[in-house]
């Protein structure tokens, strides 16, 4: 836990630095308001999508363990709880938090958004940060391998053996990037529109394995795909999830302050223990 916390802090500092570079070079978008706003409840009103409420977006359906029962507004599940914790830091009551639906593939389109921030397991990358603004890390990600229980991969997963399997994954994810850059399989991975289709491809034996973040992997293997198993997680590659803002949104500074507070007072690690706790004791395998 301690190590995780240090890494989180380091990542947060790095992300803050990059975000600062990004916003100073931002072309036009949202430049009419000053880039520094006072982080009080009244001070942030002009930076909000709708005054008097915090509009938070996520995709539909919203998956466990990030959300529960596909209902972001119940405050349960890690990302829902984080959203309400951030809202509290900014001075909002839970009833002032409104949820909007934003498909992942639309979230990075240019132009005004229908939300203040999007919380949808979106990994920060420097290239992505040229199109949108990310908050600091609210979760440090590791990738994990999911296979069927009767697959040889369960026992044979040395780096050399891992190259010989057929992989599949959701398009545009850092997990897919991980397969190509770290595992480097002999045959090109198959690419699907959503993790649901990836799951059915695994069940119908069109692929032998897929990679996704550890909590999602554990959840899918345990509850979603009959006969599936998570083999283990890969060593951390310094990847983290950030809240997604429209490029140049001024609210991000205050949200980063809130995340820093929540990290320092142990709220984030407590929420991780509560919602992702069963996923944190996982064997590590090498890519």
């Amino acid at each position, binding site marked *: 836990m301690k190590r995780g916390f240090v890494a989180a802090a380091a990542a947060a500092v790095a992300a803050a630095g990059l975000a600062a570079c990004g916003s100073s070079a931002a072309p036009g978008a949202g430049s009419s308001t000053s880039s520094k706003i006072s982080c009080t409840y009244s001070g942030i009103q002009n930076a909000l999508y709708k005054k008097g409420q915090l509009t938070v977006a996520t995709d539909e359906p919203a998956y466990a363990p990030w959300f529960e029962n596909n209902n972001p507004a119940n405050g349960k599940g890690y990302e829902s709880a984080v959203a309400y914790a951030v809202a509290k830091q900014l001075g909002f009551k839970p009833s002032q938090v409104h949820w909007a639906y934003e498909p992942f*593939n639309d979230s990075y389109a*240019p132009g005004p958004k229908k939300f203040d921030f999007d919380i949808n397991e979106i990994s920060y990358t420097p290239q992505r940060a040229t199109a949108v603004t990310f908050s600091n890390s609210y979760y440090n990600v590791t990738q994990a391998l999911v296979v069927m229980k009767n697959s040889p991969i369960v026992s044979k997963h040395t780096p050399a053996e891992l190259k010989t399997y057929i992989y*599949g994954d959701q*398009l*545009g994810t850092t997990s*897919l990037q991980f397969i*190509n850059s770290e595992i480097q399989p002999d045959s090109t991975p198959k690419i699907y529109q959503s993790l649901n289709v990836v799951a059915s491809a695994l069940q119908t034996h069109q692929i032998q394995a897929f990679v996704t973040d550890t909590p999602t992997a554990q959840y899918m293997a345990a509850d979603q795909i009959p006969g599936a198993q998570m083999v283990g997680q890969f060593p951390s590659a310094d990847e983290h999830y950030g809240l997604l803002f429209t490029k140049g949104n001024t609210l991000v500074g205050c949200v980063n302050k809130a995340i820093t507070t929540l990290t320092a007072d142990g709220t984030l690690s407590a929420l991780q223990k509560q919602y992702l706790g069963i996923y944190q004791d996982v064997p590590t395998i090498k890519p």
Partner: protein
Amino acid sequence: MNSEDVAGDPPVSYGTGSLSTGAQIAGSFGSTGRGPRLLSGGGRRAVVVSTASTLVVLAALVLIFWLAPGSAAVRHTFFDPADMWQSFIGDPKKGYYSVGAAIWLNIRMFLAAEVLILALALAIALVRMSTSPVMFPFRVLAMVYVDFFRGVPLLLVVFAIGLGVPALRLPFVSAQSAAIYGVAALVLSYSAYVSEVYRAGLNSVHRSQVAAARSLGLSNGTALRYVILPQAVRNIVPPLLNDFISLQKDTALVAVLGAIEANEAAQIYSATVFNFSSFTVAAILFLILTIPLARFTDRLIERDRRRRLAGVGP
């Protein structure tokens, strides 16, 4: 030639007196079998005016695009040259694939599907047009087939074949690549449409042609092969090509099965780096594929029309 002058036309000789604009062309339309020409034959002044008008319209559009408040963001997101080039060449280590290489899969899927569709659709059309009582159950089957596959969204067929057939776990059949299942789905769906085009073509050949062929002693099959089909097919070449242009684009639907074709590669790039320029690249590649076919279709239609109006028999 029509004697009335077009209003405002300066009294200048254009060398060939018959070349002019507006009313005069309308007057000559039909006698030569040529329609009013849009770009040629309008005289020098018309060319100048049309060029200027085109430039003004284009400039206005570009200006609106350039001066829009979000123009810089849109240009960066959709038309960034660096992103377009990156997505064109691809880099799997960074999580995305070459859109340029992926279009080759579209081309192969399209060519394979086209051949199969032409054959299957003809068979269906012939079954539906058959008159023999023995063929009755097949006629009903063909009709149900056409109704079903024309009515069901293509995407559903792609999913049903691409995810359902492998789940059956049959030897060989269930072990094919996504592209194969995609082609199968395209063939099933498009054959239904194209069989109707064939049927229209076969119906367009007058019954007397069959009667004439039969009276010459040709068998039913021979008459069909040498007399009816050639005339029917010539009539339907333009609608057939139209369907195939549409088919070229619909190969993109196979992406949902995990085959990395151009659209899929573009979406992977876009979701990886949060930039849509890859879709612009895919669009350009699709245009390069479809525009020649569209122009070829135009030429065929024009040639056919000229022949008929000139009275050269079918």
